[in-house]
């Protein structure tokens, strides 16, 4: 059961990293526009459009 000495802090640490990540994403305004974010994921990339010949 010595493995718990590593696994338990690791699990708690990962949980904490996840929580901090969430709080950071909240603070940087990533939840301000949930509808727009959904569409941005499938929007065309900016440079690809500009390279295309007109």
């Amino acid at each position, binding site marked *: 059961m010595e493995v718990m000495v590593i696994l338990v802090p690791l699990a708690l640490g990962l*949980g904490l990293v996840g929580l901090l990540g969430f709080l950071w994403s909240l603070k940087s305004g990533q939840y301000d526009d949930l509808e727009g974010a959904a569409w941005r994921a499938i929007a065309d990339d900016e440079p690809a459009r500009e390279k295309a010949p007109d």
Partner: protein
Amino acid sequence: MQATRDFSHYVRDAGSGLQHIDLAVEGVSCAGCMSKIERGLSAIPDVTLARVNLTDRRVALEWKQGALDPISFIDRLAELGYKAYPFETAGAEAAEAEQSRFLLRCLGVAAFATMNVMMLSIPVWSGNVSDMIPEQRDFFHWLSALIALPAAAYAGQPFFRSAFQALRTRNVNMDVPISIGVTLALGMSVVETVNHAEHTYFDAAIMLLTFLLVGRYLDQSMRRRTRAVAGNLAALKAETATKFVGADEISQVPVAAIHPGDIVLLRPGERCAVDGTVIEGRSEIDQSLITGETLYATAEHGTAVYAGSLNISGTLRVRVSAASEGTLLAEITRLLDNALQARSRYVRLADRASRLYAPVVHATALLTMLGWVLMGATWHDAIVTAVAVLIITCPCALGLAIPTVQTVASGAMFRAGVLLNSGDSIERLADVDHVIFDKTGTLTLPELEVTNAAAIPEDVLRLAGQLALASHHPVAAAVARASNAKSPLPGAVEEPGQGVRGYVGAIEVRLGRPSFCGAEQSANDGLSLDPEASTVAFSLGDAKYVFAVRQGLRPDAKVMVSALLKRNIRVEILSGDREPAVEAAARALGVGEWRAGVTPADKIARIEDLKSQGFKVMMVGDGLNDAPSLAAAYVSMSPISAAHLSQATADLVFLGKPLAPVVAAIDFSRKALHLMRQNLWLAVGYNLLAVPIAVSGIVTPLIAAAAMSGSSLLVMVNALRARRVASGEA
């Protein structure tokens, strides 16, 4: 005098040499619009940020200081086909947004804590039936406590605060049993952990908070979205005023930048955006938005004008007494204060449920404890069982039962064109059995329209429309709309107070007063057909035509009145307008009950009278004179074109020309109330099943966790049914 548009009021300094502005944009609804706008604006040199928010329908822009004028962005957006206007976040909306972020933070903390505590609980649950040694179990319990206690202290804040406030005012709301349940569960678990016991409830307590926070967050984001849309609509009305910045120099500024004491210019055809006193000029003004009276009033030196008045004929200079939302007619303010005070505080369904629920649950827990002690159990075991009862009955499903339905129903109403101002309006709207309509601006459209357009040859109508575009007069604007004319007639000249004239080839065309066009005879004939209409004449050489112009009924008003009657809802018209006008509208719509020439005080008296007869009255009105009665009614509704004060007082606001949203809102709210009740019964039913198990003392934390998530999912899925009402009803 050419006015310049000045939006510097809305520009913020974003630091490091950048300037920032927020624009509300109309018609952004898809991903295509989003990239089109962002590319179009980013292409302007010196723009450093252009980002569309699709949820709020706004654009945030930043650019290098001094390089650009905000007007250029609005013009660019207009070229792209979007109407935009600078936007300033109102205090209420900023507070909602902050609250929403706080709830999301709490939800995040609670959700992460739940996941980690569950990760520790599952080995304990499986270990209890296999071979886990007590030391390991204690270690896991201590770890759970380490995560759950601080997380609950943080994420429980919304509930603890609200419960504390309720108790301080000697009330009980749903948050009181929640707070007691969570605190006791955590406290007992700590004691059990110290005593090396087998079961703790850290997982159940923190999971309960997570589920409840989901409900709170949904409720909050519904209100926030409504506020954002209402804020955009207010901004897109683009209320500006022409302000004197020098003796003879004028500038077009947003109303928010006008201060008392400023002098503004009011030209014919403009709607006054401020309250003030006329200091120069003479004109006729249309005060129908304020009084409901459709006859024009005379304005001259010393006359008080109010925001919403439409200037008809002459140019006025007005000294501002208070900008945008300031002083109003003293009588209306007084009545409104009284009505708001008298507004009986409606007890929401959730609070009524918790008033019954809290004593029952706490009594059950107490009896369980005493019962076990009497049957010979130890105090320790009795208390553990009692706390288990509290946990299993903790209103997880109850906390979700109402907010989820409200969120889904308000989303459906939003799509039908109805915005909610107050959260409990859905519940009140569902009970309505008597609807009172104001006439002017509510049953009728706020804009004038040509009633005999079909009787006029099409080419003549188009020509008249082109000529009308040269004038700002509201009657001319009605002719222009009726003709769909796009480009004004070149060289047309407006003669103030008379009309417009111009030339088509060698033929003179005139549009205006019948005397101006030499068409008095045909105008009198027209008036005898429709005495309520005002007439405008058009002469094309020797040929004379007469247009009849009036405020038309909303296109579907008749259908909607009969739809209301079909739902056993009584319909009545109360209007401040003259008797013949009200009678004509009532007859056209098939409304039997109507009163004309009603003062704001009379309207309130009528509502109180109906209330005392036991009717649940909905008031639908738009005028400033309706504001007190909107507050006095059981529930109230305003069109988006209503006066500021009325819109702020009404519980619901509907968009667009048709009246259909009024009926749709009633249908959706009835369905929603039905589902809320159903959800409450589902939650009660679940408790009836679970409580005997808890009382008998065989509940394990595993059973508690499974029961809690099961009942929460059930009410959430049931709430989704509020999206639709049965076809044929809507």
